[in-house]
């Protein structure tokens, strides 16, 4: 080590938004002021994955993991930790067992994780190509350019068994092989960084924390299939990732790793960024290509597949960010090494964005074959606020719910389909007993209907009808035949829609009806919402034995629905009540209940 200490400050979006940059600046200033600037290097890295506890600062070589750091803590970190060699205990993760949980490898959140895709996230400064190179970056490209033929590269991917991480799980080597075999002078390489599933941010963190891994992989692909141009299609909503990509591309060009005659090999390859504009359907590959071409992003019938007729009619490989990030490691370490990780059906790891009602929300990377229970309870720490686990949804708006009964399923592409969901891109949303399953299904359906491009009728009309039925049910106007009707419409959409958006849109309903049929029937038959979410189906009332007549609720009720004398039982007039929930929040005596 050239420096005595390294201080890593998380520069991911979540931490940046909690003033991580100020922490970074202050640490540099404190190092100067306290005379240790020559001995300590302060580095801003990508996301550590533990965003819930951010902003995060890690000090090496002690591996002290500081959480919820604020800019004013910089002084103490330098004065105590760096100068006196005493860890700042109050900032360590889990102070209760202070020393025990201080080190990164001791934190349960990280114990079951295995990092390939996120290998550099939180370790290197993504704005400095030298740090990527120092961790074996661009070695795979060198190997691919000088020691391997296109077929060798593809063979390595085949041995690895890598399947696409964008959702469908298509074997990557096959895609490359089709494109390589397609006869054409011009071919393209495309990176899908549209990441439309709301609640998922794996690709964003990878690009922010390790942009070179994607650039390197795309260049390797260019060599393998004979393409000279690549495009990264990225959401405009990701300004930090775009900025880091631009910096990385400029540095790679400067180092002769991108552009003309790469590393003197005679091979030319360059990459351009194209921005998405907030249309979920543009994550679908044919729509994405339409969008790069500057058109409305309408999905196109396949075949022809992009491998044959893609961007501007030329053979095109299109892969997801996470798929790309795996590739340099596979080329460096070999397909055999990779294929030993994971299950028979799915090799390697998968990154998930664990969010919702989970205690440790964040980004996790686990080997395929890890069970959902390990992710939710061991890594995620279970449900927040002592509530009960209800379900987890994978696959976003195209996926389904998974209940406690299936939590011990080892995750891979096949097993998730067998339990009625799908891998999707890696969103993992945890719900607890306070969440209404019908309301969540309605949320997803509203999303897909909003995002449908409207090109084909089953998706356009079917989706709208499903939404209307769900709306009716949550308003208390559902009839028993609605369940049957939704199943019928859902099946028609699956069969008749042109693209996977429409084909999978009914999944959240079909799967939740299967596992939570009771809850749907409660809404329809008993006109009640067991979790108390659907306003029209709940009643607020006051328990006679708990109310002490403090009048607080009556004063706060916006419509004057509560009456009662001081020190007497209060009563809610159900005809006036607008179910705003204010009385429930107000009563300190637990006298207001919602049913």
């Amino acid at each position: 080590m050239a420096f005595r200490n390294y201080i890593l400050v998380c520069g991911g979006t979540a931490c940046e938004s909690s003033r991580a940059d100020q922490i970074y600046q202050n640490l540099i200033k404190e190092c100067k002021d306290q005379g240790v600037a020559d001995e300590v290097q302060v580095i801003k890295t990508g996301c550590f994955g533990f965003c819930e506890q951010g902003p995060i600062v890690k000090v090496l070589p002690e591996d002290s993991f500081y959480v919820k750091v604020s800019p004013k803590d910089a002084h103490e970190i330098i004065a105590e930790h760096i100068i006196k060699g005493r860890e700042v205990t109050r900032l360590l993760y889990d102070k209760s067992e202070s020393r025990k949980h201080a080190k990164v490898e001791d934190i349960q959140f990280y114990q079951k994780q295995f990092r390939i895709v996120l290998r550099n996230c939180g370790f290197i400064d993504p704005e400095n190509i030298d740090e990527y190179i120092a961790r074996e970056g661009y070695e795979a490209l060198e190997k691919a350019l000088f020691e391997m033929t296109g077929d060798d590269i593809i063979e390595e991917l085949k041995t690895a068994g890598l399947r696409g991480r964008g959702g469908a799980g298509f074997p990557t080597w096959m895609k490359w092989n089709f494109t390589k075999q397609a006869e054409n002078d011009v071919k393209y390489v495309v990176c899908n960084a549209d990441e439309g599933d709301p609640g998922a941010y794996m690709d964003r963190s990878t690009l922010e924390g390790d942009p070179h891994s994607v650039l390197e992989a795309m260049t390797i692909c260019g060599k393998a299939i004979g393409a000279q141009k690549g495009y990264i299609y990225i959401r405009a909503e990701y300004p930090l990732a775009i900025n880091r990509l631009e910096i990385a591309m400029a540095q790679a060009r400067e180092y002769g790793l991108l552009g003309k005659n790469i590393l003197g090999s005679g091979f030319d390859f360059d990459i351009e960024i194209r921005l998405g504009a907030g249309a979920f359907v543009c994550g679908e590959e044919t729509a994405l290509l339409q969008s790069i071409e500057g058109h409305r992003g309408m999905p196109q019938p396949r075949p022809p597949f992009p491998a044959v007729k893609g961007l501007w009619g030329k053979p095109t490989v299109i892969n997801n960010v996470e798929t790309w990030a795996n590739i340099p490691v596979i080329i460096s370490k070999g397909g055999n090494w990779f294929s030993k990780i994971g299950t028979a059906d799915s090799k390697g790891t998968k990154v998930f964005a664990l969010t919702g009602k989970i205690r440790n929300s964040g980004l996790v990377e686990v080997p395929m074959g890890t069970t959902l229970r390990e992710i939710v309870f061991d890594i995620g720490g279970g449900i927040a606020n002592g509530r009960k686990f209800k379900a987890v949804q994978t696959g976003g708006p195209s996926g389904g719910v998974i209940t406690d009964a299936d939590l011990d399923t080892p995750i891979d592409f096949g097993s998730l389909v067998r339990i009625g969901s799908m891998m999707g891109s890696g969103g993992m949303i945890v719900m607890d007993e306070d969440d209404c399953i019908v309301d969540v299904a309605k949320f997803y359906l509203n999303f897909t209907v909003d995002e449908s491009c409207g090109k084909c009728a089953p998706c356009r009309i079917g989706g709208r009808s499903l939404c209307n039925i769900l709306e009716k049910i949550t308003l208390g106007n559902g009839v028993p035949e609605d369940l049957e009707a939704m199943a019928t419409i859902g099946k028609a959409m699956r069969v008749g829609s042109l693209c996977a958006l429409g084909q999978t849109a009914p999944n959240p309903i079909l799967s939740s009806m299967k596992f939570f049929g009771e809850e749907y029937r409660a809404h329809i038959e008993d006109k009640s919402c067991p979790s108390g979410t659907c306003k029209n189906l709940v009643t607020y009332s006051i328990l006679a034995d708990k109310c002490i007549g403090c009048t607080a609720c009556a004063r706060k009720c916006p419509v004057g629905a509560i009456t009662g004398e001081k020190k007497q039982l209060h009563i809610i007039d159900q005809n006036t009540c607008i179910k705003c929930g204010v009385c429930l929040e107000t009563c300190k005596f637990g006298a207001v209940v919602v049913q």
Partner: protein
Amino acid sequence: MSESNENKFSPELLSFINEWKDKPGNLIMVLHKVQEEQDYISREAADQVAALLDVPLATIWGVVSFYHFFKLTKPGKHNIQICMGTACYLKGAQPLIDELAKQLAIEVNEVTDDGLFSLEAVRCVGCCGLAPVLTVGGEVFGKVTKDQIAGIIAKYK
């Protein structure tokens, strides 16, 4: 300021358009740049883009109306974006929208009379660990509660 003056393209924007003029598939990138400078795509701006890139106006409106990111009306000076992604929805984004709408006395996609604030519901902004999240002109607020709304608005007044 007259409308046409307000929507005049800056020299930087014009040179960006010039640079992209002959690249295939340039329209969306050009519209992004226009919106970056002017906050929305006005009629005048669309007319100019049509002339500069030599594409039919209908094509431009087709693209602008397809993509949610492009705005057709001028947003407030401070555009408040509330994340309505799944993680934020589950953590109570809807009550936040209701509260903002109440305090600003506008609905989603409207602008306050003084032009100071507008309200927009957006998809995941990528900070799901901090749900529920809202952003005001690029500044991110995480784990927002209803009580903080008044303070956040006050900060930009």
